[in-house]
Each structure stands twice: as C-alpha cells, then as structure tokens.
C-alpha cells in the first residue's frame, strides 16, 4: 500500500518550515519531493537599500545560530573589496568567537538529534551544557545570540584578562562533558540502534552532490575551508580536520563531538598566542567598484558570500550561499530507502538551517532553461502579473 505523507511545513520534528512529500511503501521511503520558500525574507533585496555598515547587522540575522559565521564572511568580502588588512589581534578574536559558536552549535545539534530519537534526557543535558558556552559569549559580547561584535575592519569589543580565566574554567567543564557524551554515544544501545547504518551517503555520491561540512566529513571526504583556504587566524593555529568513514548518522554525531574537542584546543591555543594591538581600523564609507567572494567554515559547512559593488556606499548585488542549501540534495538522496521512523533523525543529521537556505532561482521545466532573475526582473514580473489580474 503506497502512502503519500506530507512532512512539514508544520511538524514537531522541524525547527523551520520546509515541506517534504514522501511516498511510503510498507514504512520505507521510495520517493521524496522538496519544497522550499516558506521563510523567504527578501534579505538580498533589502541589501540594495542599506549601506555597508548597516548590512553587517542584517547579515547577522540571516540565521540565529550560525550568525557569527555570516558576519565574518560578509566582513571579509567587504575587506577584500576595500583592500584592507585587519589587525592581528582582531583576527585572533574572530577565530576564538567563531570556534565558540561552533561549540555552541554542536551542543545544540546533539540535543536536537536526541530529541528526534525520543531521548529527552540527553536533549536536556546537552542544552544545559550549552548554557555554559552561551554565558561565555554573553560575557564577551553582551548578547546570547546575534553578538554584534564583528564589523568591517575588525571587532568592536575586546576580550579582557578577567574573562580569559573564566573562559578557561568553562572550557575544562565542556571538555569533560564532551568526553562523557562520546562515551554515551558509543556505548548506549538505543542510540546505536537508531543511528548506525541509517542515512547512508557514499563518498562518491557525496562528492557528486557537493555535500559540505560534517555531512561530507562523515563520509571520509576531508573538506574543510579552514584547512583548504585559511582565513582569519587559522593559518597560524595547528588543528586536525576530523573525518570518519561510517557514512551514517552515527559518524556525523562522532564528527561533531570530536569537533567540539578540537575547537576547545583551538581556543586554548589562540588565547595563549593572542598578540597585543589595536582591534579595529577605520573604514571608508564608499567602496570601490569590484566583485569579491569569500568562504568561511560555518558550523554547518561552507558558507559563501558574493558581493558586487559599484563605487557608492550601497552594494549592487549580494548573494549568499548557505551550507544547508548545498546539503539539501544529499539529503534527498539519503532519504530514499530509509524507514519512516528514521526520517526525522536523518533530516536532523545534516543540521538543517532552512532560514539560511531561501534563495530564488527559476527553472523553466518545459524548455529546460535555467535563469537567475535579479531585482529588475522580479519587479517587471510582479507588475505584469498584477496588470493582468486586475486589468490596469
């Protein structure tokens, strides 16, 4: 008996609205169709009427959890257009904050996946430990999410000496908890039964479908922007790119928990080696003409921003490619053949952030032609549509 089950846009397992239509036969998924667009906010359109300094705050709000990675990527793009060099201390502070955000994201992910599996206790514990890192971020920046610390030309707040001692203590606690979770996730029989062998993505498919982030690293592909094209202070900090070869949700879990430990090591190294100096340079308001691309390893994968400037103080075009958009195709491939009960676990396994992923590209199915529309085309289409419908 073939069922068609709609998953979303409202569903207890989903954080953000996305629609999957599954075709189920005897509890196995045989086909999946995706629909996006429920949380499209028009960010790239708003960007055309704000100046570069104000856009730092807009880029923060693309996503609540990986907000620092978006501001980092955007600031680096603008700094490349301006030909600016950020001071050393600012680079180290950016690295420390980016790694703290990674730790925070991975604890959140652990709790969410446990909730999808029905393991409420692990969910509560992971989010309780996440409070420690959020308090650190709160002490440094004054806010728990959307920190507002990054700016074009450096950072706005410094890390004081007294804060560094408290960071050390929290890092010790977090490391102990990460060890505990490694033990739990490798020994607990119910977690192992739910995650091992579920949601397989072979390395060949991962390469062909352009998977990024921990999803790709769990299939054995060592792809990490921090190591391939070092930005901020990563060129001076030695670290390991974590890969596992299991290709299933359990490997993604182990990759993320190991990345927490790796991030703790990076933060300790950076805190010791941080040079003195200014944290910010002055920035002109007008940006010369040009195009620039910048890539950053957000906690979920590779984040890419493209900026085109035309000499004024407002950008001409800003394009954002968030990591979840790149992982969606791999997700559709992973979901085929999976049990219906495992669907939320697999979806949570790629760490979806649908809010990052809403961009518009139009495909004409009849002529198989693909075009990208910009603002003028959308205006024209909207006007014509209303003219036709209401007859003026």
């Amino acid at each position, binding site marked *: 008996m073939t069922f068609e089950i709609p998953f979303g846009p409202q569903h207890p397992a989903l954080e953000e609205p996305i629609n999957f239509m599954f075709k189920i036969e005897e509890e196995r998924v045989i086909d999946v169709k995706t629909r996006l667009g429920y949380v499209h906010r028009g960010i790239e359109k708003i960007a055309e009427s704000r100046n570069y*300094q*104000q856009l730092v*705050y*807009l880029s923060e709000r693309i996503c609540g959890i990986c907000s620092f990675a978006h501001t980092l990527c955007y600031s680096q793009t603008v700094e490349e257009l301006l030909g600016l060099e950020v001071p050393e201390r600012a680079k180290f502070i950016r690295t420390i904050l980016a790694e703290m955000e990674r730790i925070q994201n991975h604890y959140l992910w652990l709790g969410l996946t446990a909730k999808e599996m029905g393991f409420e*206790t692990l969910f509560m514990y992971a989010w309780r430990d996440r409070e420690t890192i959020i308090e650190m971020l709160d002490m440094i*920046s004054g*806010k728990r999410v959307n920190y*507002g610390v990054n700016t074009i030309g450096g950072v706005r707040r410094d890390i004081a000496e007294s804060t560094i001692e408290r960071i050390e203590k929290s890092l010790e606690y977090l490391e102990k908890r990460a060890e505990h979770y490694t033990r739990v996730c490798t020994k607990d029989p119910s977690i192992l039964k739910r995650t091992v062998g579920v949601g397989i993505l072979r390395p060949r498919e991962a390469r062909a479908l352009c998977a990024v982030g921990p999803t790709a690293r769990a299939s054995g592909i060592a792809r990490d922007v921090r190591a391939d094209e070092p930005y901020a202070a990563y060129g001076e900090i030695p670290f390991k790119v974590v890969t596992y070869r299991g290709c299933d949700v359990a490997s993604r879990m182990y990759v993320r928990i190991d990345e927490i430990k790796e991030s703790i090591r990076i933060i300790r190294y950076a805190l010791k080696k941080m040079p003195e100096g200014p944290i910010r340079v002055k920035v002109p308001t007008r940006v010369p003409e040009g195009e620039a691309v910048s890539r950053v390893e957000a906690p979920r994968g590779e984040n890419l921003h493209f900026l085109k400037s035309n000499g004024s103080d407002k950008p001409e075009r800003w394009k954002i490619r968030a990591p979840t958009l790149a992982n969606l195709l791999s997700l559709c491939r992973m979901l085929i053949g999976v049990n219906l009960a495992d669907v939320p676990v697999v979806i949570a396994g790629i760490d979806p952030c649908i809010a990052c992923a809403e961009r518009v590209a139009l495909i004409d199915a009849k002529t198989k032609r693909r075009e990208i529309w910009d603002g003028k085309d959308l205006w024209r289409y909207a006007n014509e549509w209303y003219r036709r419908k209401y007859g003026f």
Partner: protein
Amino acid sequence: MAMENDMFKNLKEKPMTLRFPYERVEPVEGIRAKVSWDIEKCIGCSLCVRICPGNAIELIGRGRRAEIRYNVGRCLFCGECVDVCPTKAIYATEDFELVFNSRREMITHFKRKKNRKKS
C-alpha cells in the same frame, strides 16, 4: 543505560532551571539592552539617525533644539549609536525585560526643558 550514573547524580542536585519570576539571573556587565538619551548633551548632528540599521531613531527639529524620538520596537540593540555619538549623549542601560501593551508605548520622546526667556 550508559547515562544511569549521571541521572542519579542529577536526582540529588538542585535543578538547573530558574523559577522565573521568583528567581532571576543577573545581567552581565556590558549587556546590550535598551539605550537612552541625555537630551541636554545632544547637538542634533543626526549621526545616530544615519547609522541605525533599523531606522529606530528620529530627529525632530535641528541643532541644539533637536529632540529625539526612539522606537524600541525597531531597535536592534547593536550599540552603534552609542559608539558614534560625538558628545556621548547616548548611553546604554541594562534594561532588557521589555514588555509593552501597545505600539505607542514603544516610542519614547526625549524632550528638552524649555528655556524661559528673561523678559
């Protein structure tokens, strides 16, 4: 069963959640919350109006007579206006528990004391 020890330890400890509103958490130093004006220091340069990403500040009048209308609903709590003000007329408060009953209450109008002209 791997979590048993942890669970029994938690049974004896005090819960991590707070009994809001009877127990609250202290805001950290340097928290970014609502901003406020010392209107006598304002010189009406409108730098804060231009830099605000959310268009939350409105300047009424000009120069030394200018008055400020501040809309908390649009404020991002980024603190750019505090950094950019040349006379330090804007200062950050620690007021983060903001609840309003209508949109009108979200707008604060900072008025100047009227100078009485000596006749």
